[in-house]
């Protein structure tokens, strides 16, 4: 589904991502883990072209997307989320979801038309909002939501685009245990018929959810496989705990 080959990003005098090869199989949940500073988020930014790779190639669904813009990649059905919750604070919960669905009209440069035309999406948007358990908050401004609910809203917004593949950047970051369980269940549910690549620190979440795990350290792939293989790999243990513990 998604294939990165030889992906490299150099900042001045520093290689953040070094020659990474990664293949995500269709219909799987693939996790990307690694210690802080391993280059996970940079790698995400490269895949979605928020950063320009120094070298390497990205193939998505058989198409070379290396030279496409971020917005165009999203239009192909490869949609990302962000580490810090990305909602539109001043819009209501309903409007947050609707703004994504509005993409179906194509571009919205029609500044002369009333926004009432967006009412056509209300019912379906309400469905997405309810599916992530935010039905009671539908007319609240997003800024008023708790952190966990903002993440849920973000997922509802992303889902309404009906993407084929999701890139989730630490979907559980900064969440309490209750929220973690709710979002885990949600991710499991939405993975039906979709491909997911996620960066996650919470190892129990990774162990439960993912079919395959890639470990990054210092910008390079350290190990790849299912949870059992990866967790027993001496390199991975060393990278997480640090050298000199033998």
């Amino acid at each position, binding site marked *: 589904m998604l294939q990165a080959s030889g992906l490299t990003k150099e900042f001045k005098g520093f290689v953040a991502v070094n020659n990474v090869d990664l293949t995500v199989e269709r219909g799987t949940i693939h996790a990307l883990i690694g210690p802080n500073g391993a280059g996970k988020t940079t790698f995400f930014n490269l895949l979605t072209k928020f950063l320009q790779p120094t070298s390497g190639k990205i193939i998505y669904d058989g198409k070379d997307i290396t030279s496409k813009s971020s917005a165009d990649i999203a239009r192909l059905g490869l949609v*990302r989320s962000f580490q810090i919750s990305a909602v539109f604070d001043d819009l209501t919960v309903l409007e947050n979801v609707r*703004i994504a669905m509005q993409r179906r*009209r194509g571009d*919205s440069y*029609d*500044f002369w038309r009333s926004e009432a035309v967006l009412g056509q999406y209300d019912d379906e948007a309400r469905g997405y909002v309810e599916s992530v358990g935010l039905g009671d908050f539908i007319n609240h401004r997003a800024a008023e939501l708790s952190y966990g609910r903002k993440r849920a809203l973000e997922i509802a917004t992303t889902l309404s685009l009906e993407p084929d593949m999701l890139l989730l950047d630490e979907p559980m970051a900064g969440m309490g245990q209750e929220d973690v369980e709710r979002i885990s269940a949600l991710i499991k549910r939405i993975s039906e018929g979709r491909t997911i690549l996620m960066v996650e620190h919470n190892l129990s979440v990774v162990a439960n959810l993912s079919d395959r795990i890639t470990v990054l350290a210092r910008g390079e792939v350290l190990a790849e496989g299912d949870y059992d293989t990866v967790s027993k790999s001496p390199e991975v243990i060393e990278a997480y705990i640090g050298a000199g513990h033998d």
Partner: protein
Amino acid sequence: MSTNENTNTATPAMNRSVGMPGHMKIIFVVLLAVLIALPFMVYPVFAMKVMCFALFACAFNLLLGFGGLLSFGHAAYFGMASYVCAHAAKVWGLTPELAILAGTVTAALLGLLIGSLAIRRQGIYFAMVTLAFAQMVYFFALQAEFTGGEDGIQTVPRNDLLGLFPMGDDIVFYFFVLFVTFGGILFIYRITHSPFGQVLKAIRENEPRAISLGYHVNRYKLTVFVLSATFAGLAGATKSQVFHLASLTDVHWSMSGEVVLMTLLGGMGTVLGPIVGAVIVVTMQNYLAYLGAWVTVIQGCIFVIGVLMFREGIIGVLSKIFKKPL
């Protein structure tokens, strides 16, 4: 370009919430009533000046309050439109509506040119780029032949509207200006409450997220920039017909500053804020004119107090009190 226009217009959802909310309708109707009575109560030229600046501030607010872009060079569009309109009326002998149209189109083209370069930068850099271009426009206005340099273009005639109706009488012309400015402000309201306006708000709130949803944000920014420049031009062109004059004051950077002041004082991102801000600033300039340079000092003090005490502006504060968008 919307692909499914037909289904858009046919949805039953449309009937649920057509147009603006009830309280805004009432406010606009009352405002219109007041404006119709106004020229019989105050000096009509003063009333027209207030309306032109209200439109100018609303145009600026479209860019700042809804697009999240702080331009520090809006005098360029206001001023160039003023010059072109004056030139068109005086030298080409165009009727008011065509002269104003010529000025407005000039502002739109200028906005397209400057905007397409400026939107590549963000924040303070964006403001600096717009200021730099506005200064170039000022220099052009100072040097070019047709602008009359220091003198400006004076004794600009008001030709017959549509070639039929004499516009010499200020009260008669007032109603034409009312039509243009009030219509402009309503149009800006519509822009902010359109599908386009929704995307604009999303970009203002969280640009990376808007990109990740598949929006080409730079195209939206450029569109709103051009729209804002166009309405600023409409205001400037109309102003030169009101005063029979286009001058360097219209393109000077202090004009760019004044519109920032009006918008922030009234409340950026609100519908009525720029109008209220324009009324206050223009009224002060007119009725405190005998104080001379002290007007600027008073303006400065009011601005400082405004920013310290109520950062959302007058209408922003009222909007919070009444818990309604105003």
